[in-house]
């Protein structure tokens, strides 16, 4: 931090908690940054001349006579083309050994886009994964999380999605990433040769928890620079938002706020919405798409974090281990992309939405057959065909290791239908059957 001509310095702390310190001071502004005993802090409350700050790296070892220096400005990040290909910590400082990037300083967590100036999201983002492209198509300007139990390979999946997506910039916001996962992202981006379009802001499990709170806003401020100023298509990856929420609850708890459901702060919905609503399709052609990860506790989506997330985001993608195929699949029942109808059949082949519906419906019939089997009832011929279809459908289309074009996905589905079912059993419109049915 550069020294300034005029800095207000205080040396007597009035109170210290695990996450905050209070000092008697005048002239502090809301959200302003300060340095407390050499650590970065932010003003969160003023009451008379008592100023309370949250210390991002924790307050361990801070003495009551610590030096407090107010910076006179909110958290900033320098934005510019030099960000490309670089790795930063939560404060925007390089962690890849490179020099500090030059650029224009911008406040993080800035204003929202006027809803009237938005455009309807309508550009397809293909990922090669049929569980997404075929059943839950993602559109630029959308915000969608993966809901996954901690044992699912969600970070690998979003890395795959990022590399295959046809976008100008990929910005990773890593919160509470294990060091192994951080290195995994770094290695996959480097080996894909995609480094020039990638920017990472990372808080690992080795860094202080509260620092995570800066990550989404920092990543999205950088994203806004490329989307708004440069008219680029930007994809933002945020993982893991559950760990971000944990940090929120810690701070609110230390500030004596009354918790609401699941000991989360009452403002959780607004806090998350401020982040996710940065996803936008701009009239100039630039866009921000957010793909996030929300880890679940044993698939429980009624917990406050996934619940509030689901009300904000435009759908969710569920990862599940499938016992039939032995693969991790994108669950077709619980996953949903709310914007898929903006592109299906419009930017993709005409049979897309009918194929999607028929495929999932027949897969549901297989689940019913499975229940019958488990309950000891006899299976009909149709039930047996459904079960065989389900296994192949999961392997060839739902599994996350699939990487084919959307036309290939549709053709694969037609082949499976013809292999296991009669034309009438698929319930697809006659005109499409006439055109695409694959005779064995």
């Amino acid at each position, binding site marked *: 931090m550069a020294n300034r001509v005029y800095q207000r310095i205080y040396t007597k702390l009035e109170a210290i908690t695990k996450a905050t310190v209070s000092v008697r001071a005048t002239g502090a502004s809301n959200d302003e940054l300060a340095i407390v005993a050499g650590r970065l802090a932010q003003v969160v409350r003023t009451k008379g001349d008592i100023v309370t700050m949250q210390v991002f790296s924790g307050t361990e070892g801070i003495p009551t006579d610590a030096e407090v220096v107010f910076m006179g400005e909110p958290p900033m990040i320098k934005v510019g083309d030099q960000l490309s290909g670089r790795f930063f910590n939560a404060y925007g400082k390089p962690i890849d050994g490179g020099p500090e990037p030059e650029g224009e300083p911008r406040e993080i967590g800035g204003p929202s886009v*006027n809803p009237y100036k938005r455009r309807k999201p309508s550009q397809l983002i293909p990922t090669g994964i049929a569980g997404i492209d075929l059943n839950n198509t993602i559109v630029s300007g959308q915000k969608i999380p993966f809901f996954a139990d901690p044992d699912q390979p969600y970070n690998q999946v979003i890395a795959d999605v990022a590399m295959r997506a046809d976008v100008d910039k990929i910005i990773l916001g890593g919160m509470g990433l294990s060091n192994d996962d951080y290195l995994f992202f770094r290695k996959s981006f480097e080996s894909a040769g995609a480094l020039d379009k990638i920017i990472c802001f990372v808080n690992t499990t080795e860094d202080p928890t509260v620092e995570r709170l800066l990550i989404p806003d920092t990543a999205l401020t950088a994203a806004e620079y490329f989307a708004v100023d440069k008219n680029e298509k930007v994809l933002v990856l945020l993982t893991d938002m559950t760990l971000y929420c944990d940090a929120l609850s810690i701070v609110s708890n230390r500030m004596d706020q009354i918790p609401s459901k699941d000991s989360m702060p009452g403002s959780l919905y607004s806090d998350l919405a401020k982040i996710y609503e940065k996803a936008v399709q701009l009239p100039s052609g630039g866009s921000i798409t957010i793909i996030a990860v929300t880890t679940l506790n044993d698939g429980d989506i009624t917990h406050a974090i996934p619940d509030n997330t689901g009300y904000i985001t435009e759908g969710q993608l569920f990862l599940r281990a499938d016992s039939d195929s032995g693969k991790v699949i994108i669950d077709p029942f619980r996953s949903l992309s709310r914007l898929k109808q903006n592109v299906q059949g419009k930017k993709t082949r005409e049979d897309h939405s009918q194929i999607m519906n028929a495929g999932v419906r027949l897969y549901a019939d297989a689940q019913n057959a499975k229940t019958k089997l488990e309950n000891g009832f006899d299976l009909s011929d149709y039930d047996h065909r459904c079960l065989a279809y389900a296994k192949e459908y999961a392997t060839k289309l739902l599994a996350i290791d699939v990487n084919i074009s959307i036309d290939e996905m549709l053709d694969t589905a037609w082949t499976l239908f013809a292999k296991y079912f009669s034309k009438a059993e698929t319930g697809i419109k006659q005109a499409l059957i006439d055109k695409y049915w694959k005779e064995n």
Partner: protein
Amino acid sequence: MKTTGKVIGIVSNLVTVQVDGPVSENEICYIDLDGTALMSEVIKVSGDKASVQVYESTRGLKNGAKVEFEGRMLEITLGPGLLSSVYDGLQNNLATMDGVFLRRGEYTQPLDGAKLWDFTPLASVGDKVIAADWLGEVKEAWLVHKIMVPFSFKGEFTVKSIVPEGQYTIAQTIAVLTDEEGQDVEVSMTQRWPVKRAIRNYREKPRPDKVMETGVRCIDTLNPIAEGGTGFIPGPFGCGKTVLQHAIARQADADVIVMAACGERANEVVEIFTEFPELIDPHTGRFLMERTTIVCNTSNMPVAAREASVYTAMTICEYYRSMGLKCLLLADSTSRWAQALREMSNRMEELPGADAFPVDLSSIISGFYARAGKVVLNNGSTGAITFIGTVSPAGGNLKEPVTESTKKAARCFYALEQARADQKRYPAVSPMDSYSKYLEYPEIQGWLEENVEKGWVDKVSTFKRMIRQGKEASDQINILGDDGVPVSYHETFWKAELLDFTFLQQDGFDAIDALCPWERQRYMLDLVLDICSRSFEFEDYEKCRNWFKEIINLIRQMNYLPFKGEEFEKFHGQLEIILEQNGK
């Protein structure tokens, strides 16, 4: 002289101000942040300290900042030009704002001051008038927009002068009124009104006695909502709350629709902006946008203004109701409004009620629902506000404070069911749990018998009974297995499935099926109930299932076709033949 003050405490958007004079609850003040005025509202006063909620981000605000109090509550401007507009929660016109981002402290005019309106006087010189009486009218798109004596005027006035027919802007004086003391007051085409106060310039508020058509079968037939009635739609995410509300907005038989997008997704509002200017109102043949006002305070916009947005929307409805019009207010979602209340209550360190919501949540919600209703105006005409709100219960659990409080206030309950949504049975309105209290009103029953069909109410009960019996049969089948129950159980179950697939389910994205007018609902209900009242013979349960699947398919095809058209009758003919072959 205005009361002033200075900031002495800040937590997020709750600011404490030391004041030098009188302030009132809910008074508006502006906080000066280096030349930018931040609009705020007083929510608590204690000694010479006022707690105010700021409608903007407070980043950079310092203790000591100057505050000026306005001596008025949060007001909006009412006048011609409200329709087709898109406002934020404080009635700033979002379309006329500069730049892509919302700038703090940027306030825009709600109405176009330059536009000329064709004014026709209705009152004459010498007429005695009171507040809300009609002085004249203008044409707002195709709607007749009354220019009224401002609602805030107290006592009787005499019209001293009124302008002749001609073109005027909203700011021009169109009449001069003399009050009881002989003072003259000038009246223009606009007036201002504090949003948190109900407009009560009407003679009486009778019980609703007519059903509002929405074109959605599971609402109109099963649990109709009255014109001037209240209803709410709770449901977990992904169950189709917003889709159902948009369907109602497109099709409802109302003159004016106000949509309050309260703390929801911005892309959903974009969908309305993009589609409504092109969609046609089925009742008038005009563009939907011409009868629609959007008040949007999406989830990322400041929380305090979110609370204001529902009041702003309600006040606009009350204004149009005073012209003798039928208004429909849709709020999505009232839970976000309640959460805004919770955030503020939390920052003020009030003792919390259930789930940390403020303890007066229930009375705030019922007070708001009470502003809807049908009214008889002073001149004898009638107007109505029908209000339908959505509720987003945490975790989909209906035993939470917002749902419970709303249940006490609203008369119709449209429960969206996760299980139905999972099976793609849309609209996912539960036929078992939902209810409409209006169905018990003798006035509404009378209206239905007279305007829809004799014996209608009994038919609706029969329908609901069959759905219940089908559920019971399905439970038995699931326990005992397909072979473990008599075939008649399967028949009962499949009859309920028939009613579900052909009548309850409706394809909101199909141009024809999306809108089902009364005439068609009546015809289809008679058709399906007639089938279900017969008894059939089947050798085994598989035959029973296949037979019902076939007729379900035929009736669904009918739903997708123009009513009583050639194709429609073709499928109907096929249906009759199959019924002939098996049925007594």
